[in-house]
């Protein structure tokens, strides 16, 4: 068995447009997905994540580059000969077949015996909690149940790799959250590699072992959810994953993984961790997550500390979201409501002066592109 379940080797995919031009959907993507990993491709629509997945499934062939599954180059292998199965965004259930027939379809194609099919379908339906539904037709099921049938149909063949193309996109929020946890549990139980495509960053963070953040056909960053969130390697990733405050500046000096950045808007230097790669003199983005800014009534640091005025206070239950005006900029600050109080002044007031402490270890310096 190869170390990698799926490997994309410098893959390029171009599509012809109706006007006779070409669209570059996937732009020299290289990624290695380990065996047993829950791997997500994350990006907004048109970033190339679905096309990349479809090239693994075999629905599209790369314009150049190569897709490997379990170490074997796939070339123009048709989908029905690949050891992968797909859960489609639209579920793509066969409406003229019962739940049982849908799930049995793949096994029948493999020429499995009747008894074996019965046993394996029953086990797959049990795993997605659809026992007893086998005689129903897809149109008699709810969206969530149809989703589970699609899942059962794909896992019943115990593929080396399961490909999931935004499988939860059509479900309502609550069901989606439930299914996220269920999918993760299922993946751990089955021990097979999941390649998951989503535009929902929270979903990707919740479920994945590793995430590839994609934009305009390129992989911007690949890493664990913690790495992606805590050390985004560029402004796009920091902006796409979670919420960030950005300050623009120029790198003055670099030392031991830290950078001093001159911020023209504040007319001072800020110190922060280098996240990704930057060089002296480069125009960079300084990013601080709103939950990582500390509020204080005086300057608690020699550097990275600024006085501002509260512009807006939003109480949202678990947290209080503030906008703090500072040299004509507005910074988002989230404070957890750690103390239960009915006194409105306990939650800051508009017009109040506060000090913001941007601790260097919470402040990231990254490429602005």
């Amino acid at each position: 068995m190869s170390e990698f379940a799926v490997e994309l080797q410098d893959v390029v995919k171009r599509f012809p447009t109706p006007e006779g031009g070409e669209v570059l959907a996937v732009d020299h993507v290289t990624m290695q997905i380990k065996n047993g990993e829950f791997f997500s491709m994350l990006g907004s629509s048109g970033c190339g994540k679905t096309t990349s997945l479809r090239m693994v499934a075999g629905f599209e062939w790369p314009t150049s580059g190569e897709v490997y599954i379990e170490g074997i180059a796939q070339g123009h292998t048709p989908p029905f000969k690949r050891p992968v199965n797909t859960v489609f965004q639209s579920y793509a259930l066969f409406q003229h077949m019962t739940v049982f027939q849908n799930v049995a379809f793949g096994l029948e194609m493999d020429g499995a015996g009747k008894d074996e099919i019965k046993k394996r379908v029953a086990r797959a339906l049990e795993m997605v909690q659809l026992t007893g539904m086998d005689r129903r037709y897809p149109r008699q099921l709810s969206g969530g149940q149809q989703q589970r049938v699609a899942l059962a149909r794909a896992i019943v063949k115990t593929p080396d790799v399961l490909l999931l193309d935004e499988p939860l996109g059509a479900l309502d929020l609550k069901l989606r959250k439930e299914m996220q946890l269920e999918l993760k549990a299922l993946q751990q139980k089955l021990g097979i590699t999941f390649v998951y495509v989503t535009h929902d960053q929270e979903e990707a963070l919740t479920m994945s072992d590793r995430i590839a953040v994609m934009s305009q056909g390129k992989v911007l960053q690949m890493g664990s959810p913690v790495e992606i969130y805590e050390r985004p390697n560029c402004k796009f990733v920091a902006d796409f994953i979670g919420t960030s405050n950005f300050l623009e500046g120029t790198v003055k000096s670099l030392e031991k993984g830290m950078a001093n950045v001159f911020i023209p808007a504040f007319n001072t230097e800020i110190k922060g961790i280098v996240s990704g790669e930057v060089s002296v003199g480069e125009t960079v983005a300084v990013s601080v997550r709103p939950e990582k800014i500390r509020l204080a009534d005086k300057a608690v640091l020699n550097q990275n500390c600024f006085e501002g005025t509260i512009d807006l206070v939003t109480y949202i239950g678990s947290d209080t979201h503030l906008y703090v005006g500072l040299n004509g900029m507005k910074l988002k600050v989230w404070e957890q409501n750690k103390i239960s109080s009915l006194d409105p002044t306990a939650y800051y007031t508009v017009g109040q002066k506060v000090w913001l402490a941007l601790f260097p270890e919470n402040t990231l310096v990254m490429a602005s592109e």
Partner: protein
Amino acid sequence: MLKRLRENKSSQGTLLITPTLIFMVGLLIIPLLLTLIISFGRRSADGNVIYTFGLHNYIRILGISTACEGGQSLCFDPLYANILRRSLALAFNSTVLVILLAYPLAYFIARAHPKRRNTFLFMVLVPLWTNFVIRVYAWMMLLRTQGVINSVLGWLAGLVGIPFAPFEMLYTPGAVLVGMVYEFLPFMILPIFTSLEKIDNSLYEAAADLGANPIRTFLRVTLPLSMPGVVAGTILVFIPVMGTFIVSDLLGGRQVILIGNLIQRQFLDARDPTFGSAASLILMAMTLIVTFFYTRKFGFGEEIVAA
């Protein structure tokens, strides 16, 4: 009265279906009843209807005859039974042939690039802009002994120096079959196309993903999902083929007599509307029975609800 109408939902409904009701009663139910009454009557010497009640016309179609050669009192005259059987066989053959030709065409159109799809559909529909009879005449031009096909073949044979005897194609059962298939092809292509077009591409992908090669995908997914179109097309083709007389009249000459021709001749040539009426009702009964069993087996071609 208007006020009552505004307030009463059920009288609104009655009012709305009145035009259809008048149409159906006046142009379908009353004529059908008249046909039924006439079919029990007798033809007078000058071709009028004598209204009596007797089943003699039906007995005649079924072939129970009293004018027997061997001196028996009753014998079987297969004349009309043969016509009925021939009509059924032709309708069946035509429908099967039409399905075999229309399905690949509809499949091709449904999978064609959307831009070209409309052009293809347009090409399917264009012949329908020309009168039915004129198109049958066009086939006569093609199939005649001195017609286009024989001329071209003769010319080709002349080029390579093979002796050529023109084929006798017109006025044969084959010509009638070709005519029927040609006339009713669009009525099969369109419903099949419609049901094929509705099949989401992801279903083909799902089948392939689960290990089905293109042939099995077709047999297990495409074909069953397009059956509603085939059923609808079959009803649209089988029923008119059973009843037409123009195609068999013009392309079959006097050789191929179908039940449609029989009815037409009873009314226009033999001037026996009573026998013509009985034949019409037999035709209707046959069509209804076949359609009934067919739809019992395959449904009415209603759409399988997608997603």
